[in-house]
């Protein structure tokens, strides 16, 4: 029985990518194993599908251009996540510079966009949650998404963001409290 994509280890994927005759197989294995995870990670940061599509494309182009330089000092998915996160942050910073809006404005802006977005079908509470997340500082939002939605351990998050576990715990704790506070304010 042929192994499924999820059965293929990262080492096997890297081996396939090294050889010319198996490069395409390696490409497809890597894509099938990680493309969705990375897409949703990016999407939760940038919200809109078109933006997420641009960022994920840039991410994978970078990945395949530099895969031969991957030394294996970190795990493959850590390396992939790091590239994806940095690409999303770069995109957001560029967008922020263009719009020159404040965080509060950003929250309203996101809420309006999501309501109009064909590719978002959340209810009122989910919309409010996304709005609450959008006003968090960027790094704090990333930590929250990775812990809450992607259910990553602090150790895994620390490897991606190159931050200490202690700092991440504090950051997540504050993010949760801020979101809770935002909901209470809105309700009152």
């Amino acid at each position, binding site marked *: 029985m042929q192994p499924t994509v999820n059965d293929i280890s990262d080492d096997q994927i890297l081996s396939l990518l090294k050889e*010319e*005759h198996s*490069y*395409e197989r390696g*490409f*497809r294995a890597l*894509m*099938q194993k990680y*493309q*969705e995870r990375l*897409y*949703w990670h990016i*999407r*939760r940061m940038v*919200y809109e*599908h078109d933006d997420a*599509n641009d960022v*994920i*494309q840039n991410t*994978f*182009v970078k990945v*395949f*251009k530099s895969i031969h330089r991957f030394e294996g000092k970190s795990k493959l998915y850590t390396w992939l996540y790091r590239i994806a996160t940095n690409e999303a942050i770069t995109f957001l910073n560029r967008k922020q510079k263009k719009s020159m809006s404040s965080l509060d404005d950003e929250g309203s802006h996101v809420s309006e966009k999501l309501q109009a977005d*064909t*590719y*978002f*079908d*959340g*209810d009122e*509470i*989910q919309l409010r*949650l996304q709005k609450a997340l959008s006003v968090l500082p960027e790094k704090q939002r990333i930590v929250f998404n990775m*812990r*809450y*939605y992607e*259910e*990553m*351990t602090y150790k895994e998050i620390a490897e991606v963001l190159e931050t200490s576990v202690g700092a991440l715990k504090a950051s997540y*704790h504050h993010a*949760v*409290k801020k*979101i*809770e506070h935002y*909901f209470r304010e809105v309700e009152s």
Partner: protein
Amino acid sequence: MEPKKEIQEELEQISPFLAGLDKTQNFKVPVNYFEEMQEDLWQKVAPESKSAPVAVPKKTWLSQLDELLANWFQPRLALSLASLLLLLTAGWYFMSSVDGSEELVAVESSLLDDEAYDYFAQNFDEFDAELLSQLDFDDEEIDAFVESNFSGDGEFDVLLEDLLQELDIDELEGLLL
């Protein structure tokens, strides 16, 4: 403990409200998005040499030779080769003519002094200023040569002046020392 369970318990401690919210993914993607993205990306990242493998028939030695000859005799390449050959020929010809004059000196050096003098007298037109400076005739021999080959109305002086003009400062300095 499983990460999922650990994360849920942690959230319940920090915020029971948030722990109770539905985590359903509310973001959607277009139909077949991930399949199409894979193909789009393959077009961008597939190196030419690493595209889908194509069966290549094994070449015979005759077809390889034919290919080699076809490559060598392409118009542009043939023109470049012809230019190179021409340059090499011109270079060889030039070096040969230089060698010819060096040959004169070499011939001269192999002759005995008397024979060298006779040779010089018969072929002095072929000697330029540099060669003349290499000859080691004494003053008597030079005077005899001038007397027999030049008239007294300064013909030799004119020739000497012409020869001196050919010499550069270093060669002139060498003659005088």
